[in-house]
C-alpha cells in the first residue's frame, strides 16, 4: 500500500490540480461564451447558403464584389505595419542612443500622445488636416512650397495609412522602447568600441535582440487595424475601401449577414496567417515568444 507521506502528497497534488482547474474555469467559460460561440456562429453563417445548407456561395459573392477591397485592405494594413515598425524602431533607437538629453526627454514626452486619442477622433483630426484645403496644405502653401492650385487631398488610401501610422506607432514604440531600455547597455557600448556607428548598432545589435517584442507589437497593431471601421469610414469610404466598411455596409444596407461573415472570416484568416508566422518564429527561437 502507499505510505502516508506519499498519499498526503498525492492528495495535495490532487487538491492543487482541482484548485488550478477552478481558477481557469471562469476564464475558459468567458472565452467560450463571448468569443468561441460567436466565432463559431459567424463561421457557420459564412458557410451557410439559404436553401441548400452549406456551401461557399457567400465567399464567391464576397470575392466577386470585394476582391479589390480585400487586396486594398491587405496592402493598406501591410504598408501601415511596415511604416509603424520603422517609426517605432527609430523612436526606440533614439530614446536608447540619443545624444541630447533634452531631445530625448521631449521625444519621450511627446510620442505617446496619440495613444490616448480614440480612432474616431484621430480620423476626424486627419480629415481637417489632410483635406485639399486642410491644415497641412495651408501650411505648405503658407511656406511658399506649393501653389494653392497644386495641392491635392490626401483623403484616400494615403490618409488611412497616415492615420493608422500616427495612431499605432506610439503603441508599438512604447513596447519596443521598453524592451530596448532593458537591454544590457554594455552590448551597445561594446559595439561602439568595435567601431560601429549608430545606425549599424540599431540594425545589427539592438533590433535583433528586441525582435520578438517588435513582432508582437506589430501583430497586435495589425489585428487592430484590420478591425477599425471609423478611420476608413471617415477618411475614405469610396471605392476601393477596407473590409470593415464593406461588412458594415452588407449588414446595414442589405441585412446580408452571410457575406458580411464571409468577409469577417477572410479577415480572421489574414490575422491568423500573421499570427502563425509569429508563432513559427517563436518556436524557431526556442520557446518563449
Amino acid at each position, binding site marked *: 500500500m502507499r505510505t502516508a507521506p506519499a498519499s498526503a502528497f498525492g492528495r495535495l497534488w490532487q487538491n492543487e490540480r482541482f484548485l488550478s482547474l477552478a481558477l481557469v474555469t471562469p476564464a475558459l467559460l468567458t472565452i467560450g461564451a463571448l468569443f468561441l460561440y460567436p466565432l463559431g456562429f459567424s463561421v457557420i453563417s459564412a458557410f451557410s447558403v439559404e436553401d441548400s445548407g452549406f456551401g461557399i456561395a457567400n465567399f464567391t459573392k464576397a470575392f466577386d464584389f470585394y476582391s479589390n477591397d480585400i487586396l486594398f485592405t491587405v496592402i493598406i494594413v501591410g504598408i501601415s505595419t511596415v511604416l509603424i515598425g520603422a517609426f517605432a524602431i527609430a523612436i526606440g533607437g533614439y530614446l536608447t542612443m540619443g545624444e541630447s538629453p533634452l531631445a530625448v526627454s521631449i521625444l519621450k514626452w511627446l510620442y505617446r500622445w496619440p495613444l490616448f486619442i480614440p480612432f474616431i477622433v484621430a480620423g476626424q483630426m486627419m480629415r481637417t488636416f489632410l483635406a485639399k484645403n486642410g491644415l497641412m496644405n495651408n501650411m505648405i502653401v503658407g511656406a511658399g512650397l506649393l501653389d494653392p492650385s497644386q495641392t491635392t487631398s490626401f483623403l484616400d488610401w494615403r490618409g488611412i495609412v497616415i492615420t493608422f501610422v500616427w495612431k499605432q506607432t506610439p503603441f508599438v514604440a512604447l513596447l519596443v522602447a521598453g524592451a530596448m531600455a532593458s537591454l544590457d547597455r*554594455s*552590448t551597445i*557600448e*561594446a559595439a*561602439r568600441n*568595435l*567601431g*560601429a556607428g549608430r545606425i549599424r548598432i540599431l540594425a545589427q545589435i539592438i533590433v535583433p*535582440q528586441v525582435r520578438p517584442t517588435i513582432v508582437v507589437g506589430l501583430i497586435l497593431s495589425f489585428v487592430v487595424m484590420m478591425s477599425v471601421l471609423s478611420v476608413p469610414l471617415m477618411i475614405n469610404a469610396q471605392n476601393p475601401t477596407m473590409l470593415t466598411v464593406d461588412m458594415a455596409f452588407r449588414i446595414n444596407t442589405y441585412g446580408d449577414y452571410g457575406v458580411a461573415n464571409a468577409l469577417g472570416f477572410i479577415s480572421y484568416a489574414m490575422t491568423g496567417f500573421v499570427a502563425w508566422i509569429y508563432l513559427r518564429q517563436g518556436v524557431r527561437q526556442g520557446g518563449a515568444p
Partner: protein
Amino acid sequence: MNTTQKAAAVVFEKVSKAFGSVVAVNEVSLTVEPGTLVTLLGPSGCGKTTTLRLIAGLEMPTAGKIFIAGRDVSLLPATDRDVSMVFQSYALFPHMTVLENVSYGLRVSGMKKKQAGEKAEAVLAQVNMPGYGARLPSELSGGQQQRVAVARALVLEPQVLLFDEPLSNLDAKLRRQVRQDIRELQQNLGLTTVYVTHDQAEALAVSDSIIVMRNAEIAQKGSPRDLYEKPEDIFVADFIGDANVVKAEIVRIDGEQAIVRVGVIEIPLPHRGLTPGEVDLAIRPESVQLSNGAAGDALAGEVLKATYLGGHIEYTVATPVGELFVIDPRVHMMFSPGGTVGVSFAERGVTLVHP
C-alpha cells in the same frame, strides 16, 4: 610614429570627469608606457571604470586632455579610437555566434566575411578556443565567454587594450589561471594594456606598474614592489597587502635617513620628507621578526594568538607599540600563545608613511 610597432602610449593631462555634481575623476595625470600593463587599483567608486571609459571614449572628459600615441583624442568618439575594451560583463552579442562576435569589429571596418572569419578563427585559437565558432555565447561557460570577449578585443590589433575587472565573474582557481593567460598574451603581443581591478593580489601579479586611486584621484603610482615596500601613506599601505601601522618618533634627520624610535629600538629609514616628531610607521606582517626571549635590541612582546596555516604561521603579538599582526614562514618552530618573544624589524617592508 613607428607604424610597425602598434603599441601606443596613453597620457592623461589633468583629466577630470564629473557627472553632474559627482566628480568621478579629478585632475588625474598619468602615463602608460607603450607595451606595458598598468593596473588601476582602488576601492569601489573611486573612479577606475570611469578612467577606463575615458580612454575608450565611452565618456568624454569635462576638463583636461587625453593623448593616445601622441595624438590628442580628448574629443574623439569611441567609434574612431583604436582602443579595444573587455567589459566586466563581457558584453558578448547574445544573438550572434562566437565567430560572428569575434569577427564583428573586422566586418564593421569593411573586411570581407570570409577573410574576417579566418582571422577570427586564428585569434580564437590564440585564446585556446578553437572550434567554438558556431556556438552561441549562452552555450559557453563563464571562462569561455571571457576568452571570447578577449578574442573579440584582440582581433582588431588595437593600440590599447582595456580590461574592466575581467576576472570578477570567475571562480578563484580559474581567476589565477586566466590572469596568467592575459599577462602572457599581453607580453607576447607587446600590447599597451590598462587593467582595472579592486583585488590587490591580482594587481601585484599582473602589472608592470600600478596606479592606486582614492576618491577620484591618484593616491600613488609605481611598480608593484615599490607600492608594496614603500607605500606613501596609510591608505596605500593598508590597501596593498596587510600592514601594521604603529606610532613612532623621528629622533633626528641624518642626510637621507631619519633615525626612528619605535618603543625601545631605533632604526634608520628613508625620511621621505618627514620632519622630527611623531610619525606613522607601516610594517608588513612578514617584516616583523620574532625571536626567543627579549634580547637587548628588540621589543618585548607577548604572543596572543598563533595560527598554523601550512605554508606559514600567523601570530598576533602584543607589544609596547600596539598589537602586531605577524606572518612567519618558519613553520618548524612555533611560539605558543602566552609566551614571551623578542620583536624586531627586517630592513625591507618597514616604511614611514604620510598620515
